[in-house]
């Protein structure tokens, strides 16, 4: 390490006698990619606790040899720029969401060391839900919670951890529990959960406590390396600038005022075995569908040669008409025929009679967006949906309207309109509920986008009641036959199927 640092001239004579015992960790970049020209200093105020916390984490990671395996999640707050300094994998996430992002990172890369570095405004205010649930799930991450009892970056507003009586810009006469509540004790809260393996509160208040903090940080990282579970270290830290104290006084204030309110302790240090029962089969969607297909029928579906590159279908109607289910059926059919598919529902809070629509994309390539602004096909089960969405249909597209004829005042020049009285047909077959399957039959016959045989396979898989399955089969056939016969005979507004 000595060779990385410039040894001042006057000390060159003693470097033969002396060896370097402490110097800048290799975990820090030699020069920081800051926006301003101060590339050799951190952006923290003089005496800020973040710098010390950074050094403790960096030293532990370096000593444990974890530099190349570490992903640090920077928060929002003064330490938002942690990625300027730590030469590890860095992610900066939305306010308070570090434990959620860290969960994803750790689950995707279980062999990496994932650290969430958060302040008290970030972790204990906007991010309370994320930290509680990450801890409760026992995510195998390390969270370093730097608590300075104030919002530093935004100018000294009251934080959840602000002490009773402590002044801030939003509690100018001191925090009053009757109005602002009591300070949140995160360590105590989290130690009421079952899953965490290690929870400790340390302080940067004096030499001794800093060295204790050093050990706690190291222990949390060692535990993570061993795959032990959720580890959490709260670091009480000075904020001289916002507290309006000089750095030495501020550090003393941590010891005199903060520690009595936030007692230092190891709140949790034991191994936790989280039961892993009812493990679901680890299969991809394709494998799952393939398996069902093999189990369900002996006749394999040949991968159809689809005539489109991608097809966007919008299905709209009332809730209860099977609008969303029809979309799901189409998506599953597409999946079985080897297409990329997406299904995006949109519905109100009502299960019945509210308006509902969904977007289905079928594509040979990856789907960029599941939202369709210009669907090629619109299935409108009701007049309201037809009026609402008809103009969105791409020129040359198709509209399948679930009524006998178009309203007289409506003209849709850009699209081919097929009218099919689906509910009436379904009702004659035995239940108006299968109107959506009638429409499906019509869609398949009209656009030939997917094979009716696939539709039956999907229905066989979904509908367990044989009587209902038979009804669905009839409905599907009825929809196809209607297109074959009735439409050709002029049931649409124009004989050729095109509106003027």
């Amino acid at each position, binding site marked *: 390490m000595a060779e990385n640092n410039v040894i001042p001239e006057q000390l060159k004579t003693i470097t033969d006698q002396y060896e370097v015992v*402490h110097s800048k960790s290799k975990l820090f970049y030699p020069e920081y990619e800051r926006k301003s020209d101060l590339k*050799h200093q951190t952006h923290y105020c*003089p005496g800020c606790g973040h710098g010390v916390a950074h050094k403790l984490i960096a030293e532990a990671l370096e000593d444990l040899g974890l530099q190349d395996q570490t992903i640090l999640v920077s928060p929002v707050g003064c330490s938002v720029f942690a990625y300027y300094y730590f030469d590890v994998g860095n992610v900066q996430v939305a306010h308070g969401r570090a434990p959620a992002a860290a969960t994803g990172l750790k689950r995707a890369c279980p062999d990496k060391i994932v650290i969430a570095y958060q302040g008290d405004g970030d972790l204990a205010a906007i991010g309370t839900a994320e930290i509680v649930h990450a801890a409760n799930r026992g995510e195998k991450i390390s969270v370093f919670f730097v608590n300075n009892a104030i919002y530093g970056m935004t100018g000294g507003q009251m934080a959840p951890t602000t002490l009773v009586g402590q002044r801030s810009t939003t509690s100018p006469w001191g925090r009053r529990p009757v109005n602002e509540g009591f300070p949140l004790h995160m360590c105590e809260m989290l130690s009421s959960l079952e899953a965490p393996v290690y929870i400790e509160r340390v302080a940067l208040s004096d*030499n001794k406590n800093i060295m204790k903090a050093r050990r706690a940080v190291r222990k949390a990282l060692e535990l993570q390396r061993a795959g032990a579970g959720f580890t959490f270290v709260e670091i009480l830290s000075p904020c001289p600038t916002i507290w309006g104290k000089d750095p030495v006084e501020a*550090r003393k204030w941590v010891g005199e005022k903060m520690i009595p309110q936030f007692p230092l302790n190891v709140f949790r240090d034991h191994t936790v075995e989280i039961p892993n029962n009812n493990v679901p089969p680890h299969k991809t969607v394709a494998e799952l569908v393939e398996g069902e297909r093999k189990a369900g029928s002996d006749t394999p579906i040949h991968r159809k040669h689809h005539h489109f590159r991608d097809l966007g279908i919008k299905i709209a109607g009332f809730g209860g008409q099977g609008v969303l289910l029809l979309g799901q059926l189409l998506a599953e059919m597409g999946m079985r025929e080897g297409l990329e598919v997406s299904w995006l529902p949109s519905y109100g809070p009502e299960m019945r009679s509210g308006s509902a629509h969904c977007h289905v994309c079928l594509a040979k390539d990856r789907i960029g967006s599941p939202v369709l602004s210009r669907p090629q096909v619109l299935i409108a089960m009701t007049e309201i949906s037809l009026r609402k969405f008809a103009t969105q249909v791409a020129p040359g597209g198709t509209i399948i309207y679930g009524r006998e004829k178009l309203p007289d005042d409506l003209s849709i020049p850009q699209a081919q309109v097929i009218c099919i009285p689906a509910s009436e047909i379904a009702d004659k077959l035995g239940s108006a509920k299968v109107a959506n399957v009638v429409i499906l039959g019509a869609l398949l016959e009209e656009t030939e986008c997917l094979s009716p045989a696939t539709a039956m396979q999907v229905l066989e898989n979904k509908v367990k009641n044989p009587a209902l399955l038979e009804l669905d089969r009839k409905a599907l056939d009825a929809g196809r036959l209607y297109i074959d016969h009735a439409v050709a005979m002029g049931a649409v507004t124009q004989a050729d199927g095109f509106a003027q």
Partner: protein
Amino acid sequence: MAGPARGSITIDVEECKGCGLCVESCPPKCLELAPELSSYGVHPARYTGHDCTGCGICFYCCPEPGAIIVYRLAPPAKTLVAQSQPGGGHAATL
């Protein structure tokens, strides 16, 4: 004090923000804030030049990653060993 001090430190004047935490923390009180200002307008910390034990407390109290380098007097017999181990620079303190 006979012979060289057990330890020594160097402070990067360009990185030091003059917070004074190292001065406050130093057990043998061998640090002080320089009377002259640095180019950033602060009084940077400096070594008085004697009594350093190389304990490293100032290093851990300093919020700047690289402002302080702590040296320790290497016993002649162990010098070779210490130089051959690059990780040996992080002996535990306290």
